């Protein structure tokens, strides 16, 4: 299967230490073109592209830009979410390591459109080797006049700083991320107000994922309709997928939205190694649904995945073969959430711990049928009442396996399997 590389178009195509090589590929011509365009015309192109946020929530990128552009406030910020903490996702690392200039260019265009003069890249601590790549690229872009005062002789000025994460998954949540940049504990804020009206230091702030931002320069250059046309059928554009777990070929690949999950697993991933059979797939990262092998005929896009009981997330696909114990995987995931819950609200802080305890109890052969109901009730409460997306989504592995791997639970419970 042939990849369609748009967000990944320049990865590995130039020496990241050489801004001239990026320019030779057409780099920074998107920014040059943007600065000669009307801001609303750019927003229209982004809207026409159908681009939806690539960080997991899938909010339409053009609509978010529109809101921040319209927000009142002299001081505005553009923040790139490069926290990439979701287990089973490592696409942003690949983009930043191989093509830092597209990110800088995308952020500068975003800054121009929303009216910001300062940008931040919030980079997770776990990517220490990416810091110099980004900071050198920022320095080179500044020296070449693509950042700084009066870019391309216009009255637009913009600069970028890189800020470090500290090893907290919750800081990928946009308001926790802002708290962290402000030098505080990364605890999510109550919403509203949303960052678009009151974000960093209370100023209107645009927050986008790395992949969303690097897709902007080609959209500006070639038009929204051009990008949109890459999607299969009704789908718009492309998406990067991270393939991990029990696959012959793991890695980061970009395909049209609407590509079938089964094809991705077998034709790109090569199926399970060692002659093993596919047992299931966790879609959408640690907080995504786990589906069984009969459910994998899904066109990969946000709404299709939800309708099929899967999760699109950031395009994360973790495959496990028939030698794996599904409940052991669920236990591992709930350990993750118990550990990463920031503790600010009770449903998530207590809920994840209780879910983990119940899963362990069942795995130890001490579970009852009533425990399955408790798992479901508790999950529902957490999804409804948690303050941020972490607690709202963390029960997904439990709820989805109760549905899609029910016998794995029942077989561990006395009298469960009749």
């Amino acid at each position: 299967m042939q990849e369609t590389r748009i967000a990944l178009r320049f990865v590995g195509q130039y020496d990241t230490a050489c801004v001239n090589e990026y320019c030779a590929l057409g780099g920074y011509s998107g920014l040059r073109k943007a600065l000669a365009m009307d801001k609303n015309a750019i927003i229209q192109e982004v809207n026409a592209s159908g681009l939806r946020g690539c960080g997991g929530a899938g909010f339409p990128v053009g609509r978010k830009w529109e809101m921040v552009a319209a927000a009142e406030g002299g001081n505005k910020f553009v923040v790139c979410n490069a926290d990439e903490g979701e287990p089973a996702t490592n696409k942003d690392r690949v983009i930043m390591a191989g093509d830092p200039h597209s990110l800088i260019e995308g952020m500068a265009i975003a800054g121009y459109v929303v009216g910001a003069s300062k940008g931040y890249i919030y980079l997770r601590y776990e990517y220490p080797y990416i810091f110099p790549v980004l900071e050198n690229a920022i320095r080179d872009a500044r020296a070449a006049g693509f950042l700084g005062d009066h870019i391309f002789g216009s009255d637009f000025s913009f600069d970028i700083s890189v800020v470090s994460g500290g090893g907290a998954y919750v800081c990928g949540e946009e308001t926790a991320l802002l708290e962290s940049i402000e030098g505080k504990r990364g605890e999510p804020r109550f919403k509203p107000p949303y960052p678009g009206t009151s974000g960093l230091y209370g100023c209107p702030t645009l927050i986008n994922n790395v992949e969303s931002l690097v897709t902007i320069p080609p959209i500006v250059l070639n038009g929204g309709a051009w990008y949109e046309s890459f999607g299969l059928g009704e789908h718009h554009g492309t998406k990067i997928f991270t393939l991990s777990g029990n696959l012959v070929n793991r890695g980061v690949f970009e395909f049209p939205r609407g590509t079938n999950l089964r094809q991705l697993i077998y034709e790109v991933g090569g199926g399970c190694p060692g002659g093993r059979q596919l047992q299931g797939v966790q879609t959408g990262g640690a907080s995504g649904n786990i589906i069984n092998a009969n459910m994998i005929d899904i066109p990969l896009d946000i709404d299709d995945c939800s309708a099929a009981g899967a999760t699109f997330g950031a395009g994360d696909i973790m495959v496990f073969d028939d030698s794996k114990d599904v409940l052991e995987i669920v236990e591992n995931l709930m350990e993750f959430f118990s550990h990463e819950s920031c503790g600010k609200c009770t449903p998530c802080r207590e809920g994840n711990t209780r879910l983990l305890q119940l899963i362990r109890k069942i795995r130890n052969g001490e579970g009852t049928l009533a425990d399955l109901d408790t798992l479901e009730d508790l999950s529902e409460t957490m999804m409804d009442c948690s303050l941020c997306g972490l607690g709202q989504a963390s029960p997904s592995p439990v709820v989805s396996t109760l549905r899609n791997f029910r016998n794995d639970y029942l077989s561990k419970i006395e009298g469960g399997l009749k």
Partner: protein
Amino acid sequence: MQNQCDTSTVDMAQVAAIAARYKNEPDQLMRILLEIQSVCGNAIPREAATVISSVTGIPEVEIYGFITFYAMLSDKPRGQYIIRMCKSAPCHIVGAREVAQAICDCLGIAPGETTADGLFTLEFCECIGLCDTAPAIMINDAVYTNLTPQSAVSLIRAYQQGGVC
């Protein structure tokens, strides 16, 4: 080495100099603390926190609140090399547990502990963004991927013999 940082070798003037950057870069508190941690033996001891507080004006209690929230900052002493072993699901299902066990056996310590010579601290961590080349670990800032129990042990031996820096 167990409960107290050995602060005799820490240069508080250096800590103060790094902390002074906060005045112009209040958005870089994390990197300032990470840098201080790296010159204080991979931890921020009480004495350093006091200095940071007086230089930046941030109350000491807030500095502690910050340090204890983030997994990468520590107020407890740690070894020269911090080995972070990913235990998240994509690593777990391709053999991370066996790799971790081999490293524990090789060093004779459990996760959370530091070797008697102060060389290694072993920690479990969550996803380090190398899922497509799992199992993966980090030793300080270096990453190691596609590990097996055997290759992990050779790697640790190389560090013990000073062959990697």
